[in-house]
């Protein structure tokens, strides 16, 4: 069943690409990967660990046909091959992984859509469908500066779902609604639960007051994301945030801040997150910084890095609050046309605090409440500039990416 879904999605992506090429409409493509060494001290159950991995290996594209009336967007992700056991990420959680970031599915995004304009473009309506991102929250961390995924990945984004998304744009405001399946993937080869389609929904309002500046507020109601059969509790999620990406003082600059809240089981559990990040260019260097404070549910573990999926009950053993400062720099060592090779180094200082009661003890798992991580390696990207996953139809007009010619001195 899983293989069938995967073949269907891959086939769809291939057909879209061929259609676009045959109809001689615009086709763009991209590829990338990051070779990274990460050291974390301490890891769960104590000690220091260093791992070399290739993360975020992707191939994607976008295009259109029927004179541009139909667009498509696709991205394949091969982390199921390169990091089947996840990537060392203290604080990370989700899909049965803990303190490791889970691999994404092979068909990360395969969306098809259409848009129509009225009144000289004052009004734009759009419809999109496929496997991708429901209208909720902020950008996929894969498209952001830090290699390290934030702890709030599962509070601030909803991804890899079978989704139908409708849009209506009026001048600088876009409202979106989406229907999708609530269950999250069980493995990299897992397709979205067709039988669960429509059991979850989301709404997002986006505002673009000036070029390069945007705000969003969104909400989602997701049924039992951790239970493939759909039996479980709703997650009720809220996200608000702002994003700036434009020239400041002649330098391409980026700022983002978001706040998210997830409530589960009729309010039995509530988790908050605040995240802010920024980046700017200094010559061929891109410096970036992220601050994050996110609550994480603590579950009983199967091993240092795994929790049971699906869970057997609705118990937590506590809640932790992760406060993380991440500072990094990447250096455009080599650039040719649309290809860039960037060595990078990135470090995080982390404090793990316990909030509320419960038997979870930070020292039981980590031996202390302060953790550090250091990552270094090289990013390779082809045609990646300005790509933002999960933004469809008229939202791509407001991507706010800084023109490529401004990126390097």
């Amino acid at each position, binding site marked *: 069943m899983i293989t069938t879904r995967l073949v269907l999605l891959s086939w769809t992506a291939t057909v879209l690409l061929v259609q676009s090429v045959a109809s001689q409409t615009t086709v763009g493509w991209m590829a990338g990967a990051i070779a990274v060494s990460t050291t974390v001290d301490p890891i769960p159950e104590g000690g220091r660990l260093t791992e070399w991995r290739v993360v975020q290996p992707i191939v994607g594209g976008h295009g259109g046909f029927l004179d541009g009336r139909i667009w498509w967007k696709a991205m394949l992700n091969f982390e199921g091959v390169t990091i089947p056991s996840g990537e060392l990420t203290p604080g990370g959680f989700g899909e049965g992984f803990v303190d490791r970031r889970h691999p994404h599915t092979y068909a990360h995004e395969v969306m098809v859509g259409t848009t129509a304009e009225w009144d000289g473009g004052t009004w734009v309506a759009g419809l999109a469908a496929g496997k991708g991102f429901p209208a909720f929250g902020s950008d996929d961390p894969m498209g952001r500066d830090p290699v390290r995924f934030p702890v709030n990945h599962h509070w601030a984004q909803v991804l890899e779902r079978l989704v139908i998304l409708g849009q209506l744009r009026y001048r600088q405001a876009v409202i979106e609604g989406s229907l999708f399946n609530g269950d999250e993937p069980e493995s990299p080869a897992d397709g979205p639960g067709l039988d669960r389609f429509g059991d979850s929904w989301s709404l997002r309002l986006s505002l673009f007051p000036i070029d390069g500046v945007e705000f969003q507020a969104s909400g989602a109601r997701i049924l039992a994301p951790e239970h493939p059969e759909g*039996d479980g509790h709703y997650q009720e999620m809220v996200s608000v945030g702002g994003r700036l990406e434009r020239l400041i003082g002649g330098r391409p600059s980026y700022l983002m801040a978001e706040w998210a809240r997830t409530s589960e089981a009729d309010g039995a559990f509530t988790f908050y997150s605040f995240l802010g990040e920024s980046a700017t260019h200094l010559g061929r260097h891109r410096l970036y910084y992220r601050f994050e404070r996110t609550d994480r549910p603590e579950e009983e573990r199967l091993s240092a890095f795994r929790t049971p999926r699906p869970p057997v009950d609705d118990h937590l053993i506590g809640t932790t609050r992760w406060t993380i400062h991440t500072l990094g720099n990447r250096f455009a060592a080599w650039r040719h046309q649309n290809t860039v090779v960037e060595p990078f180094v990135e470090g995080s200082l982390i404090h793990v605090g316990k909030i509320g009661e419960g038997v979870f*003890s930070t020292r*039981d798992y980590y031996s202390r409440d302060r953790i550090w991580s250091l990552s270094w390696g090289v990013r390779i990207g082809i045609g990646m500039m300005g790509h933002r996953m999960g933004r469809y139809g008229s939202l791509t007009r407001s991507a706010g990416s800084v023109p490529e010619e401004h990126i390097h001195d």
Partner: protein
Amino acid sequence: MTRWGRYLRSATGLLIASVGCVTSPQGGAGDSGFALTIVGGDHQVAQMGQRLPQSYIVRATLDGDPLPNREITWTVAVGSGSVDPVTSVTDQDGLAETTHTLGLEVGAQEVRATIADLAQPPQVTFVTQVELLPAPPRVVSLPIPANYGIHDTFVRDGVAFVSAWNSGIIILDVGGGGRGGTPEAPVHISTIVTEAAPLQTPSAHNAWWFHNPVSNERRYLFVGQEGPGTIGANSSGDIHVLDVSDLENPVEVAFFTVPGAGAHNFWMDEARQVLYAAFYNGGVVALDVSGVLAGDLADRLLAQTIPGGQGSTAVWGVMLAGGSLYASDMISGLWRLDPVSLVPTGGGFNVPERFGSDLWIAGSYAYTGTWGNREGTLGNAIKIWELGEAGPALVDSVLIPGIRTVSDLQVSPDGRLLIASAEGAEGSGIYVYRLSEPTKPQLAGLALVGTGIHTVTLAEVMGKLYAFGAKNPAAPALEIYDLSGFVP
């Protein structure tokens, strides 16, 4: 000894090591003059998972003389087993020892002993040949809907009540329900989805079929609802009461709530018509369940206790034995309570290094499971208690390698077998121990189950002893094992 003298000794040790003479099955020499020899325990033959009957014993010497008061480090070199203790100190004769609980690998398993704090420590290696344990035959694996799966099974008179979370209570004829069912081929009688209120989901976790000796009725089934919560802080879920006079048409008739707490395991004093229920942070409650039960049973509350105090109580289970009620608290250990007032009369705060789980009392001994990770120590132990005048006294522990939780345990009606379910890692499954010596359970059988067994229930059906295991998702099932091969 001068600095140069120490260098000379170290250099000598390196030279010895370089020619491959450091380690041998019989003895080893390291820093010049220090030596370690095996005195006893080497070359045993045992079955996997067993604690070896003979300790490993070494003698440490310096220039041929016994070396007292030196720390010996014991390390499992091959296999997933464990040693206890991991360090020991030599006595006046230079002797030190440890015990080895074998891992689950067949073939050679090895433990290495070294003298601590030496640059080139001498070491010796103990080798034990490990044989396969017999697995109890599984007679059936009955799939349960994947709505959190199956949590517990109550078996009485050949009728099994499967607590299947949001699928409710599944009633099966396994040999006494009059539908032709057997443990090998259970026959479905009925299913009732218990009320979700006051929560979002039914979350049926456990049950007890009340055989009332006063009224001679077999009318009520008590069901524990295990709702969302944070262990050690809060919990939720009611006791739901079903009228199962007609097993084919059960009806929910009553409920009982402890505000801010949720139900877990039950026990009954059926003669007194009292239901005891563990309520996690709500402690233990005693309910009068005599007569007709209907609606809210709030006025049936006889007593409640929070034995470890607020913030230090999460009671997993209760059991009545020998005129006392025993409660296993995840945080504060094993308690003895007065069965009427529920006032603690002994025990408590007696398992500081691990979280507790289930309990079982057999004669003057108690067995408790352990759970999760506490201060870095996994719940891989069965605690063995002697029940005296002063309350439960810990006498020994059995370690199970390759697991993180002993989720349930029970002693057979004849007192000869102890059975435990285990979760959390590669050793998950059902463990069968012989209780020839009640304080020294000997592992006799093991059925490994990859996703773990959440609970196990023993029941005699049609003259044979069976274990009813609740296999965890993703493919939950009621797994029934024939234990008659383990009964002498």
